[in-house]
């Protein structure tokens, strides 16, 4: 269990680099990192389902210019890992599997927002590196440029790694306890909500593509 938590957080840290700091080949999208985590923890299909649900919900989230949107990657990683690790601890059966997944989804959603706050803090901190180089480069210390780039990349990784480590550990500890407190009516409702989530995702995708502003170019 502990090894699995560490592996998942490590992958989470690496994937969160792809959001903006390095590469941007889009392995950070939920549709890729859901199945990837699933593959590592031994259940590809569940990972695929969660990845698709989250991808559809966040399909319209784009970073225009300097704006930083809520982070879908960290939510996908923590949500998939938590579902995989804790589902085996609970006697769920087919009836309540959906409701449990809804609980995890609902509780991990705000993590994206929190992670973005941390991200903004870090980017403000990055301005210090600029001032540092403003001082160092006129002195002739040109090697500092590469060092600063790699150090900042490492900080990005550390942020994703630690954040998912804390979130996953807390989730593994609290989620099963929380779930066993929920009354039967709520569970039925959650199960129903789980079946309707594709409608939510598809409607958001519909809105994303409906808003095209361009006439067909001649």
């Amino acid at each position, binding site marked *: 269990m502990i090894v699995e938590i560490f592996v998942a957080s490590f992958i989470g840290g690496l994937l969160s680099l792809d959001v*903006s*700091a390095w590469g*941007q*080949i*889009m392995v950070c*999208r939920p*549709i*890729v990192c859901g199945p990837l985590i699933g593959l590592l923890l031994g259940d590809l*299909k569940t990972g*695929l*389902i969660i990845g698709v649900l989250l*991808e*559809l*919900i966040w*399909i*319209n989230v*784009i*970073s*225009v210019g*300097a704006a930083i949107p*809520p982070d879908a990657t960290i939510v996908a990683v923590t949500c998939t890992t938590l579902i995989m690790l804790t589902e085996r601890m609970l006697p769920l059966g087919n009836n309540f599997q959906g409701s449990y997944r*809804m609980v995890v989804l609902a509780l991990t959603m705000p993590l*994206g*927002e929190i992670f973005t706050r941390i991200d903004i803090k870090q*980017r*403000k901190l*990055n*301005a210090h*590196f*600029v001032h540092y180089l*403003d001082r160092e*480069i*006129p002195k002739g210390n*040109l090697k500092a*440029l*590469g060092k600063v*780039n790699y150090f*900042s*990349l490492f900080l*990005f990784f550390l942020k994703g790694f630690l954040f998912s480590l804390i979130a996953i550990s807390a989730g593994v500890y609290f989620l099963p306890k929380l779930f066993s407190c929920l009354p039967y009516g*709520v569970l039925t*409702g*959650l199960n*129903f*909500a789980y*079946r*309707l989530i594709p*409608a*939510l995702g*598809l*409607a*958001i*995708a*519909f*809105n*994303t*593509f*409906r808003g095209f502003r*361009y006439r067909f*170019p001649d």
Partner: protein
Amino acid sequence: MQSVWNFERMQNLGFLYILAPVLNKLYPEKEKRIQSYKRHLEFFNTHPYFANVLVGIVARLEEEMAKGGEVKPEEISTVKMSMGGAFGGIGDSLFWGAWRPFTALVACVLVIIYLKKWEGAWLAPLIFLFLYNFLHFHTRIKGVMKGYEKKTKVVRLLEKMHYLRTIWSSHLIGLALVLLTVVVVLFRDWRAIERLYFLAFFFSVVLLNRWRISSAKLLYLLIGISCVGAYIF
């Protein structure tokens, strides 16, 4: 490229880091090299994929300046500012606004429709990565070459990229795919009342989302409604 992205001068350090090998080669004397580094510490921001075009152009201009051409440092700075902004706008609407949602939707639709019948549904993420990165790497590699080759005339090439047509058609096909998926999902072995709930929820989200209610809030709304509903019925 964006690892030292900061709110003050945005991508300046990433840009300088990519350009550094070129500058090192062009200015062997330490004094000139320091001067050139200092010039590129200025503000810079664009779309990360199109930054390569700028790298190509600036490398060419620096080369001409180092060889004693007529290029002035202010000119390079102006090129970076103006073209960075323009490419930023195009890149945001092409990659973030159209191509990524479209390719992601294709993968999602494949999974939703085929998950139960087809063993190879796990291929969908790979299809997404392949489709997306095809255009991505094409832009990056072509960008740096053409930027170096044609300098600022590279803008003409954008017309040949038909990026407006790509945006337009990916939006249209995306819309059709969403509707197709809704129909396919509706024809599953559900009870009539469930189909009705699905459609009602679909259209209410379409409406609510237009008023800029975020998807997370809509998710909580769904949970709330269905829990209350479960107690009533």
